[in-house]
């Protein structure tokens, strides 16, 4: 209940301000368009890098979303009130992670057709396995990102610190997601690496829930 209230609050304030959504959508679209002009690749080469390209865009766009997650609580000392409230720390964390997940999924769903259009890649045939990969990998990005958003919330250079901490940890998740996405976009319904995403999500969700009180109260 408390987690849903936090998620609802974050989505509502984001919808009113659009402070991270505008930045993230613009960034994803601009990078996709720029890359399409920057590389002169034949179809085979393009298909070979398609998963990597898509997930690099999603990972960078995701950092813009999760960066605001706990930073949103700083004006008026709202973070203090959340921590002092009877709501447990894990509920606050989960609420924020869910809100980031939904926002990043929205950014990904907006940019996926643009990706297909500019790179002439047909993803509709493997939409369901692709959505499964996107959902699992996006949860991994948001759960780790939200945890590091809490770690860096009081750091002066948090916009720089968060990516520095986040991307090294995301490497196994991103490699798995990139390989599976490339396979799916090439017409090979390969979901052999799905276990990597499932294990990554389970480990980092449990770890973040366990550690969040130690992170927030110092």
């Amino acid at each position: 209940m408390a987690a849903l209230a936090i998620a609802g609050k974050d989505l509502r304030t984001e919808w009113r301000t659009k402070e991270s959504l505008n930045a993230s959508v613009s960034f994803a679209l601009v990078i996709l368009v720029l890359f399409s002009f920057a590389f002169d690749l034949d179809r085979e080469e393009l298909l070979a890098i398609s998963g990597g390209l898509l997930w690099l865009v999603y990972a960078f766009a995701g950092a813009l979303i999760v960066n605001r997650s706990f930073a949103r609580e700083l004006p008026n000392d709202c973070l203090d009130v959340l921590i002092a409230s009877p709501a447990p720390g894990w509920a606050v964390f989960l609420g924020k992670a869910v809100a980031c997940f939904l926002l990043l999924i929205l950014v990904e769903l907006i940019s996926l057709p643009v990706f297909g259009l500019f790179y002439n890649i047909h993803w509709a045939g493997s939409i369901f396995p692709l959505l499964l990969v996107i959902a699992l990998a996006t949860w991994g990005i948001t759960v780790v990102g939200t945890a590091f958003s809490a770690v860096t919330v009081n750091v002066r250079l948090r916009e720089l610190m968060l990516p520095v901490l986040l991307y090294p940890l995301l490497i196994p998740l991103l490699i798995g997601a990139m390989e599976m996405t490339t396979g799916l976009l090439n017409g090979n319904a390969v979901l052999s690496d799905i276990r990597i995403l499932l294990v990554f999500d389970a480990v980092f969700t449990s770890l973040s829930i366990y550690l969040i009180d130690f992170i927030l109260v110092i």
Partner: protein
Amino acid sequence: MRAVAADGVWKYFGDYPALRGASLEVAKGACVALIGRNGAGKTTLLRILASLSKPSKGKIDIAGRIGYLGHGIGVYDDLSAIENLTLFGRLAGVSNPAATAGAALEQVGLSRVKEGLAREFSRGMRQRLAIARAFLHTPELLLLDEPFTSLDDRAVAVLQKLLSDARSRGSTIIMSTHQIREAMELASDVALLERGRMIFAGPRSSEMLLDPGWLYRTYGEIKE
């Protein structure tokens, strides 16, 4: 019955000890005026009691739900007054959060602007919204950090009424303040911090009420 027990609490910020073995016991239903000069450690102690900060050493024991009013107002600028209080009601697990929020806004005189965004409110209105937020879930322990500072007359009256109601319900109140005369009128107990040490903690006496400077003159100025 004890509502709060702090035993030998130390808090370091780097090498600097903001609290040096401060101890405080507060009985259920008491109203404690936590006084001390700037930098004495009042805010640090209140933040530790509110679970916003961990003590470097020492033990804390708190009974009951906490209502906290710190230096920031703790409300979201991009939510309306009713949305803010409904959210905090949900987080506190109150039954029927929307109705509770509506009643709280009525109490602080903001029911006519309940749909207005907090960012559009005047300073006084925002302060009253913050007060309503802190008292919303009828907490057993109220931790108030300089609650009367820069409040307008109306907000002072609202806060005094809510404090009086809370006391009659049996809630425990700990409030830090520099307005000693006003605090002494409300307080049943007094705690004096100086340079991180609790140099007096006990019932408010008639001398304290008649002469706000008496406590500092009698117990203050630690000689290092």
